[in-house]
Structure formats: C-alpha cells, structure tokens
C-alpha cells in the first residue's frame, strides 16, 4: 500500500481510502471463517469415517488373535512332541481342530457383518429342505456338543415321514441357525441338552425353536443381547465364546427375510430362541413380484 501524505488529502478521499481497507479486511476475515468452517467439517467427516472403520476392526480383533495364538502354540507342541506319544499328538490335533472350527465360524460372521454394514445383502431364494439343513447343522457341531456332554434333540413338529420343504434363503438361514446353536451350546450347562424343534404355524410361516438349559437371561439383559459388542458373561475365566455379533447378524438377516425373533428365558433355567419366517414368494431372482408390474395410469413423474 502506497504511503499517502495525509496533509494533502481531503476528508472525502481519506474516508474513501479507509473504507476500502476496512472492506478488504472484512473480506479476508470472511474467507478465514469460511476456511475454518471447511476445516471443521472435514475434521468431523474424518472422525465419523474413522469411527465407522474401527467398528469393523473391533469386531474382528479378539476373536481372531486368540484362536490363532492357540493354533500356533499347539502345532509347535506337536512338532516338539516325542514321536511315540501319539495319544498326546492326537489330543492337541483335536484342540487345533476345535480352534480352527471356531475361527471358521467367526470369519463367516465377520464377512456377513461387513456385507450387512455395506448395505449389500440380498435374499437368494430357493426351495430348502429344512430337515436336512438342521440335521446337517447338528452334525457339524457334534464335537462341540460332545465337549460339553450335551444331548441333542431334533424334532420335526409336524411328525410324519416327509421333510419340510420351504421357500427361503438357505445360506442365510444356515447362518442364523448356526449362531443360535452356537449360543445354545456355549451358554448351556455341562451334561444338559440342546433341542431344536421346527414346523409350520397356522399362517404357513416356518417356526424354529432352539432350546437350551443354560444360565438363562435376566429381564434387564434381554435388551442388550443384540449389542454386537456385548456378551452376557464377560469374566476372564469365562469358558464361553462368541459375542453379540451373531445375534446382530441374525437380526439383520431375519429382517431381510421379513421374519421375527422371539426370546423366552428364565435365569438359571435356560432360554428358548424362536425364529419365525414367512415363506418367500419369489424364487432366485432379485426382482420381487411387486416390482415386476409396470405402472400405468396413476403414477406420477418426479
């Protein structure tokens, strides 16, 4: 800014000059405020984004690190085991299998959770043999049941010889039932039983009950079981596995299939989880019947 000799200026010129400078400073301050606001917005966005990412990471960390540590330790022990001690090696191999099986289960849940959080789940409908799905599930968990000395009971409530054939999403139903069965085993008491009974109700909906004789859930806790981070027995000495992730995935899948989940429980007596799913209308396409009609007449264009 040129230095202007004050003495030679009229008041009008002086005022005009000062006015101009004030205006320039005002604009600079406005720019600064605007930049500041943008910075705050960006910061907010980054925080939100980080928070969302860390949910996924916290979902997976513990449930992966611990089993892997066990597998590493056990396999090393097998290598160092005297060659003649086959019994010991077998025992450790069996424990490795247990950890790997659990890891497989956790991974399935983690990928399911990621898919759900990305909003990219779709029903994949086919005719499902429910009897086969459930008995196959029980077989997969044979070792887990044995470990806790649990009896398994599978009851088709409709009696008769023919299996129940139901139009629904086989993969998602399997995940839902795996999660419920896993909880029924984990929260059960040694030597007790796990029962799965199933059939169709008067509305034609598929009803599957998973009953355990474990510690049960108190009234206040019934609400928090869907929290994907919480599990009811958090003690260090807890022998239980699994976390809320299973139940929150179940909720999302059951919603997608337009079903519902009911829980009945008595502390120290056990719990009954009931899944109720309506039969799907469409078969194996991502285009519902309702979406298929073309509009004519009363539609509006936006």
């Amino acid at each position, binding site marked *: 800014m040129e230095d202007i000799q004050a003495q030679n200026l009229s008041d009008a010129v002086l005022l005009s000059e000062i006015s101009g400078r004030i205006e320039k400073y005002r604009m600079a301050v406005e720019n600064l405020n605007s930049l500041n606001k943008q910075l705050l917005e960006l910061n907010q966005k980054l925080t939100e984004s980080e928070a969302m990412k860390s949910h996924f990471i916290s979902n997976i960390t513990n449930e992966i690190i611990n089993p892997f540590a066990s597998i590493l330790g056990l396999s090393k022990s097998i290598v160092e085991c005297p060659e003649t001690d086959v019994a010991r090696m077998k025992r450790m191999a069996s424990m490795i299998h247990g950890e790997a099986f659990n890891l497989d289960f956790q991974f399935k849940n983690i990928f399911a959770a990621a898919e*759900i959080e990305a909003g990219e*789940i779709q029903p994949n409908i086919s005719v499902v043999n429910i009897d086969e799905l459930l008995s196959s599930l029980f077989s997969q968990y044979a070792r887990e049941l044995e470990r806790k000395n649990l009896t398994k009971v599978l009851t088709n409530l409709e009696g008769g010889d023919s299996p129940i054939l139901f139009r629904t999403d086989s993969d998602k139903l399997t995940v839902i039932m795996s999660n419920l069965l896993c909880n029924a085993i984990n929260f059960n008491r040694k030597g007790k039983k796990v029962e799965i009974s199933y059939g169709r109700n008067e509305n034609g909906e598929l009803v599957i009950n998973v009953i355990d004789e474990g510690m049960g859930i108190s009234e206040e806790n019934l609400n928090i079981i869907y929290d994907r981070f919480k599990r009811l027995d958090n003690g260090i000495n807890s022998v239980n596995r699994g976390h809320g992730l299973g139940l929150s995935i179940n909720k999302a899948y059951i*919603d*997608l299939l337009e079903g519902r989940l009911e829980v009945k429980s008595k502390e120290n007596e056990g719990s009954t989880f009931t899944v109720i799913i309506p039969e799907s209308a469409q078969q194996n396409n991502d*285009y519902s019947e309702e*979406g298929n009609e073309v*509009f004519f007449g009363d539609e509006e264009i936006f």
Partner: protein
Amino acid sequence: MTRHFLYPSTMYASIQASEVTTILGSCVAVCLWDRTLGIGGINHYMLPTWNGMELASPKYGNIAIERLVEKMLQLGSKQSNLVAKVFGGGEVIAFSSNIMHIGQRNIMVAEEMLEERRIPIIGRSTGGNSGRKIIYNTKTGEVLQAYIKSNMSK
C-alpha cells in the same frame, strides 16, 4: 438397462444405467443423481439414526446417506454436481405417542444431511398416510411413483 429391486436397509449405486425399484412405508429413500455424468444411486432406510448397538448398516438414515454420498464420489462424481430426490416417510397407522413419528424423523434426517452437504432436493414426495412404490432411473434421474393403497409394512 439393469433392473434392480432394492430391499430395506440396503443401497445401490452404479455407473451402469439402472432401473431401481423399491417400496416405502415409513422408510425413506434418497435418490442421488449426478447430472453431468448421468449416474445415480439410491438408499432405503428404516430408522433415522444409528443406535450404536446393532451393526452400523444403512438401515439407519445417517449411515445410509453418508454412505450413498461416499459411493457416488467413489464412482467419480463431484459433490457439487449431485442433486437429490426424497421419497417416503409415510405414517404407519394407530400410533399415539409423544415422540414424533418415525416417518417424519426419517424425512428430517434426509433434509438435514442433504442441506449440510449442499445437495439440493429437486424433487420429493414425502409424508402422508400411504405407502409408495418408486422406480428410479439412474441415467435420466427420473423417478416414477405410485401410491400403494394397501396396509404399509415397510
């Protein structure tokens, strides 16, 4: 032209020209359209904000809208080229409660978040007592809507 049916709690965005159909009750769908690239995306959420407990999915408006905008940017859009159309948020019958109805709250989340991002709402059909079926053309940005007279479940 790809055809896609959008289920509740999910979202869809693509560079391919697509006709996306979805059915709304108290749920809200936000359609975003990039007028320069001729691409679009749409979400379908059931509740206004994430409760912090369940999975952080696009079942919740704040997550659904945030993710949809992100997806459009990933597909190559500039936020300044985006426009929005908002649908749904009708009222389910027989609720007498002091809390504002879900439909209204869902609409408000859309209005607030789009305004924050300076994305203009150039078309809308919200509120009322009926369900809606909409078909969104992601290439032209056009949305066809018909009211559903039967009872609302979504």
